[in-house]
């Protein structure tokens, strides 16, 4: 019975970023790879994302970012630590400039997928980091 574990991923856009296409396409990729995706949509605050991650008991959080709101991603990481969610990796995707990407990785984001990342690379990465 132990093989019934399904990877559950939360996908969201954060802050005043209204670009949902990338998030929705990635959600679809993950579904096609057999994962369960809780899709929160746009205009989510770090608090809303943390609360949803707790209630949904997800394995990974994916944030799509196309509007230079990197501080909010940092706030999300801090809030997760405060709420005891240190074990949930946060991955990001979208148009994140290199210098900001480095900062985010230093703050604790586990991986950033730049534009033109393949769907396989995202699926494979998530599969590899979820502890079974």
């Amino acid at each position, binding site marked *: *019975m*132990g093989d*019934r*574990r*399904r990877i*559950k991923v939360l996908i969201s856009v954060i802050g005043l970023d209204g670009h949902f296409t990338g998030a929705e396409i990635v*959600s*679809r990729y*993950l*579904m*096609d*790879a*057999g*994962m*369960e*995706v*809780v*899709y*929160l*949509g746009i205009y*989510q605050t770090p*608090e*809303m994302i943390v*609360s*949803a991650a*707790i*209630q*949904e*008991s997800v394995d990974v959080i994916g944030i799509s970012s196309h509007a230079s709101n990197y501080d909010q991603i940092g706030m999300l990481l801090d809030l997760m630590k405060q709420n*005891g969610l240190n074990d949930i990796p946060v991955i990001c995707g979208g148009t994140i400039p290199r210098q900001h990407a480095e900062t985010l990785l230093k703050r604790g984001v586990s991986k950033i997928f730049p534009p033109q990342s393949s769907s396989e690379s995202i699926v494979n990465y998530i599969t590899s980091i979820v502890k079974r």
Partner: protein
Amino acid sequence: MVNNTVKKIVNGDVMTAAKLIRDIDDQVPETREILKALHGYTGKAYIIGVTGAPGVGKSTIVDQMVRDLRLNGKTVGVLAVDPTSPFSGGAILGDRIRMQRHSLDKEVFIRSLATRGQFGGLTQSTLSAIDVLDAMGKEYIIVETVGVGQGEVDIARCVHTTVIVVVPGLGDHVQAIKAGIFEVGDIFVVNKADRPEAERAVTYLRSMIDLAKKEFKNEGWEPSIIMAEALNNKGIIELLNEIEKHRRSKKVGDILVAGKRDSARIQLTEMIKRRLIEETLNRITGSPEFEKYLDCIMERTKDPYTACDELLSAMVFGLSLDPCSAPNRTSNHPDEKD
């Protein structure tokens, strides 16, 4: 360990409850012990089912219901069930998106669940998840399911009030008289009632209800119809009032007293069914005899009907088994007729 978890859940610990529901969904065997212990704390919540075709506005209605229930100081749990892809086994759970404004309210617990290949609106894990929310002390539990095929019927058996959401223009009275949907609804909501033909949809429903007036009278509740525009928060208070009315009706009174036995029977039967099927099926399909039968069927020395009979008699009822011995080769194969 079990006691600790149970204590936390009964005290309303969200993280523990959420993790338990995840384990239930993943069918972790240890959850069974916790559910056993939780059972004594359940049976207090009022459970409302909301069902209807995709896109009719179920999530938006639920969102508005949660708002009004919270304004009245009630605690609420929401289980939003979305379908699992039959191809990949994955799912996109997108109901929460309509309810995110409640995410910071500590008295509201919203959880998305995938159907995970079970047909029907409700799964065993949904029933167990209802128990977890119930044990947490949520006064109202709203279960939202996509009503496709016969799924709605399941939901009606496990909840106190079934709300069926329809929209204008989805079909005529012939759709409404089809079996299934109509018979299980306690309250019908015609959502998006600002659209043309809303009145007509109400008329269709009304005429269907009138046809069965007598039966409804015996049951103690005649289904009501509410026009709503959930997005504009119209018709929601009326819906909640109607739910309260239904709650006080003879029908729910019967469910709450005598019907408890029914729901206990369904739950127990489903549980036995699942374990029986799982364990027996694995035993049969994993056996060397099963493979031999496959060979025989491929070679047309045995038909699958006989194979099924024999496998079941041997492996379930304990008779002797000899795959391709007694061939039913009195053959009906067209090639061998002459």
